[in-house]
Every structure is written in C-alpha cells, then in structure tokens.
C-alpha cells in the first residue's frame, strides 16, 4: 500500500479498469504520450497501447459524440475533457444524446461511459479554467454527477463510475489533485455511487460539502470543535442523484445545517439540498439553513479568485450565526 495523491488515485483506477475490462477505452486531447495535461493518464498509453488510450483531434463535441457511438456498441468509453471550461461544445451531446439514449430507445442502446473533467478554482489558471458548473449537469435527468474529495474516494468512485451501466460526469477538483496523500490499496474495490460519506460525526450542526471545499469544511469543523461546537461533516460525493437519506438523517439529529460549495449560489447543488431539507425535515430545523458559496458572479481571473472562493473563516462565521438561534 502506498500513499498517493488524488490524481494518482485517478490514474490507478483507470489503469485497474483498463487491465481488467477490455471494453474500457480512454481518449481525449493529449491523454496519450503526454499523459494528460495534469498527468491523469500518465504511462497508460505505454502500458495499454494506442488502441486503448487514444489521442483525439481537438474537438470536444466530437469527443463526446465518439463516446456515444462507442458506448452504443457496448464499449465503456472514458473520455477526458481537458478542463471543465472547455466542455461546453460537448454539452449538446451530453444533454441531447448521452443522458437520453437509454430512454429514447427504451433500453435498447445504453451509454455506459464516463466523461472526466478537472474543475474548480484556486490554481492561478488562465481564464475559463476555474469554474464550478456541476449544477448544469446535475440538472439533466439521465446523468450521474460524481465529485471525489480525496484520494481514496477518487479511486473507489472512479471504479464505480466506469462500471456503472449509465453515464457518469466525473468532475475532479484540481486544486486538491496533489495537496494530500492517502494510503490507497489498488484492490479494485469500488465505493458506492448515490451515497454520501459522513467524514466526521457530530451532534450540533451538519456541514455539507463536496470536492475541494471538503478540505476547508473539515478544517472549519476542527476549529468549531475547539470552540465547543460539535459539527458533523458530510461529503455528498455524488451530487446527482443525491443520497438525501444520509443528509436528512444527520439534519434530524443536529437540527442545524450549512452547505459549503465553490459554485455560485443561485440554482446550485446547495440550493437543491436546502430545498430538499426544507421539504422533508423543516420541522427538525432549529435555525435557518445556511449556504456558504461562491458569489453569483463570473468566476474571476486569478488576481481575485481568493476573494471569490469560500474560506474557512466564511464557514466559521456562517456556522456560528446558525448556532446563535436558540
């Protein structure tokens, strides 16, 4: 067992599935010899060959469309979008074909594919490289949207995503690609999709997050503990469809909840979680639901990105405000 980073865990999961399932095919821009611009596919072409780890022409709509054709033939394409900011040409295929093919053929043609994309801010990247638009995908029926927050989850969830019989948008929080290492055993054991993970148990307030923001959220929970506030922390992981049972169970216990997300506030995953809690657990609430999120602004270029992104302090302020309700 070795301690590996989140991106190394992605690579390990991809390698595991290439090794054990001959229908798995990786493709995208620069994924071959270069191993991807973040090195997610590093060494995979050398091991598995150019027929299974394929550099494509530079066209994102085509990448998604090729995945549709290959999946319809029963292959398991894993397509890389170099950055989520470049996924929009592929949106037509994702929305009109990938998400719908099973339904529009009544199950005759299915789309067992993964579309991977690094996303999120905080790495001083060029414009269009830092947005968090997961809600766009979560809004589309027929897609699963999965976001790992740490190395072991990246490994287990990637395995599950590739093995899933339906299309998964797998968004990788690139800010945390390399900031922590986990001991991850390359044993082929997947984690469940459509399941939240309770990363810290607590009785006073439920903090809910996913992706890179899990790190700030867990730090905030420790600081709250030092002040005598016992926070439960939930990693949503699959942001669509959401495992609301785990969230509701926690909220019924604590009566207080704060959602933490990097994405803009309006029409977001945080909005959906807040609405579900309001629908199903409002009588358990002791305080209004809080949301700490990015602003409803264009994601700024890097000079201002620190001002945009939620911080530990913002989480602490909101959690304490929620705790003030008696």
């Amino acid at each position, binding site marked *: 067992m070795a301690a590996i980073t989140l991106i190394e865990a992605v690579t390990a999961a991809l390698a595991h599935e290439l090794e054990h399932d001959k229908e798995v095919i990786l493709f995208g821009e620069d994924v071959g010899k270069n191993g991807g611009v973040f090195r997610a596919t590093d060494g995979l072409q050398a091991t598995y060959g150019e027929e299974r780890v394929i550099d494509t022409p530079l066209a994102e709509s085509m990448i998604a469309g090729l995945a549709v054709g290959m999946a319809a033939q029963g292959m398991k394409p894993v397509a890389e979008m170099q950055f989520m900011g470049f996924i929009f040409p592929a949106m037509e295929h994702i929305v009109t074909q990938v998400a719908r093919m099973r339904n529009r053929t009544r199950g005759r043609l299915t789309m067992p594919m993964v579309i991977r994309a690094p996303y999120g801010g905080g790495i001083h990247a060029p414009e269009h490289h830092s947005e968090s638009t997961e809600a766009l995908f979560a809004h589309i029926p027929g897609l699963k949207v999965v976001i790992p927050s740490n190395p072991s989850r990246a490994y287990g969830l990637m395995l599950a995503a590739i093995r899933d019989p339906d299309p998964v948008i797998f968004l990788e929080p690139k800010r945390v690609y390399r900031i922590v290492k986990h001991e991850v055993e390359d044993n082929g054991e997947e984690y469940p999709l459509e399941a939240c993970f309770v990363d810290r148990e607590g009785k006073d307030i439920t903090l809910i997050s996913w992706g890179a923001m899990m790190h700030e959220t867990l730090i905030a929970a420790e600081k709250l503990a030092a002040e005598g506030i016992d926070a439960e922390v939930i990693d949503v992981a699959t942001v669509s*469809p959401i495992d609301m049972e785990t969230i509701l169970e926690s909220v019924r216990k604590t009566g207080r909840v704060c959602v933490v997300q990097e994405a803009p506030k309006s029409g977001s995953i945080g909005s959906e979680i807040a609405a579900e809690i309001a629908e199903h657990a409002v009588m358990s609430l002791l305080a209004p639901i809080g949301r700490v999120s990015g602003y409803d602004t264009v994601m700024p270029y890097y000079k201002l990105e620190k001002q945009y992104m939620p911080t530990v302090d913002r989480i602490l302020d909101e959690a304490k405000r929620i705790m003030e309700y008696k």
Partner: protein
Amino acid sequence: MTTTTVASFEIKHHQYLDADGKPTQELPAFAKDMDKMRSLYRDMALLRAFDAKTYALQRTGKMGTYPASLGQEAIGIGYGDCLTADDVIVPYYRSTGGLLKHGVTMKEILQYWGGDEGGSDYSVAKEDFPICVPIGNQIVHASGVAKAIQIRKQKRAVVTEIGEGGTSEGDFYEGINVAGVWNLGVVFMVNNNQWAISVPSEIQTACETYAQKAIAAGIEGIQVDGNDIIAVRQVAEYAIEKARNGGGPTVIESVTYRLCDHTTADDASRYDNKDVKDEAWKNEPMVRLRKYLEANKAWSDKDEEAMNAENAKKVEAAVEEYMAIPKPGPELMFDHLFEELPEMTKPQREEAIRRAGGNK
C-alpha cells in the same frame, strides 16, 4: 523561393440514367438485372406510399410531425440496398428509406413519429441508432460506432445521413475529420435536396459542391445524381465495401430536390419557387426508373397497378398495427432513465402512476 501547387482536387459527378431514363454511360451489372431494378422500384414506391399515408395520419390528428422523403427516395433505398444485417445505420429524421431497407418496420416508424419512444426500440436492426433530431450529432456518433468496429477488427460498415444544411454544423466537420484521421469505415451520405427548411442551398455554403467538404477532412468526396438510383446504389456500394474492408470513409453528396414540405409542420409554398419545383418534378427518381424499366420491357401499367394495390395493403396493415399499440404508461418515463431509478426519483414515479390511474 518558389511557389508551387502542393495539393489540388477534383470532384466527380456520377449519373447513369438521365431524366428520361436513358443510360448516359455503360451501366453497372446490377442495373441490367431487371429483377433487381423492379425490386428497387417497388421499394421506392412503398416509401412514397408510406409517406403519403403518414401525411394523412398527421392531418387527421393520428400522428405527430413527420418528415417525408418525396423526390428523395433513391437515396435511402439506394444505400439501404447495399447493407447487410451486420452494418449499422446512424440515421437522421429523413432516413426512412434506409431504415426500412435495414429491417426497421413501418409500424415502428409510425410509433416513433406518433410520439412514442418505443418506436426506436427496433425489433430487427438492433444496433441502428434512433433517428437524430439535433442536426449533425449523428455524424460524430457514426464515427464513434466505426471506431468501436475498428478496435474490434470487425468487417462492418457504418452509414449515416445528413441534409445539405446540416453540413454547416461543426459536428459535420468534426465527424468526417476524425473519420479521416483514424481511417474509419463510415459512409457519410449528404442529401442535398436544396432546402434546409426554408433556407436555400446558396445561403448555406459558398462551396460548389457538398462533396468537396470531404477534401478538408482528407477523405474521398463523390457527387451523384440523387434522382438516379443506379448512380446512388453504385457509388454507395463502392463506399460501403470500402468501409467494410479498411478502406476508410467517404462523403457522398446526392443531388436531388425536396418535392415535399420540410415536415408536416411546414408550408413550403411560403418560400419555394413554383417554376423550379415544376421543373424538379420532371427530374424525380421514380419516373426515370419506370421509363428505364419500360424501355427494357420489364414493367407495365398492369405491374404498376398490382404494385400500388400491394403497397397500399402493406401500409394499411402497418397503420392498423400502429393504431393498436396501447398508450404508453407513465412508468415508462422513469423505467429507462437509468438501469436503476435513483431513490430520490422513486416517489415521482409513484405519483405519476397514481395520477394517471385517475386517483388525483
């Protein structure tokens, strides 16, 4: 420093029968087989009869919007005749001819355009795609299918179809480009019927031909007289054989004319030119094939009558089957969304069923 020509190109146009059904060059062997030619004529006539019936069904509220193939029957019947069960069609909305030839039933096509996704659950051509509604997506899908076939080292061709307007979409270029780079076994059929709903071909492109768009992808582009089924079939057969045998992709532009509205929801009299259309009627594919058959003493008025009666019977039988399909239940909205419906969505399924049952 010198200036040289580094590449140059030409586009060939193929025609075997002129508008009067007279050969314009030595005919391929299949065209001299009168049984084959009669059977192609019958297929085209059946498609025309089917289209006419769907219009009637739409006008009487028994079906939704439908795009007919009037005047363009030689294309789908032509390439469809060259396919085997192992080949794959990735169709668009005006691919009825090709799909019928590949075993998709008239009942299924009626069911689809009658508003029921169940019509795309083909009973025979199980790997063919459902028709593509967003313009151009099918071009890239066809390349994806062909990539899977190539990886598996199978000898199967993929045929996809698009209107000339659709070639303005980025997906058209992206799909043919990757097919060229990877030498994929796809035949890209461009139905140049002169109209993208109301937008005429001259507003669509500055290219002299649509076939030449293939040149920018480094693949072969051929133009055929799309009203001459011998030309369509001959060139499609060449391209399909080539696709099956590792020879790579081909773009085939079939020049024809849309004699019908874009769909039942369109009124072409708002924008088309009556004189041009009258002229186009003289060029349409069935008249010329009938003249050719008659000149070879392979067709008579009696044959025509018998065929029309037989086709009407086939279409009626399909309509009866279609009308007998029970209305889909609301659970179908949910049951093919994923292999397993998410927990979150289950209460919605129950509600839809409960409310459809009249228990409000």
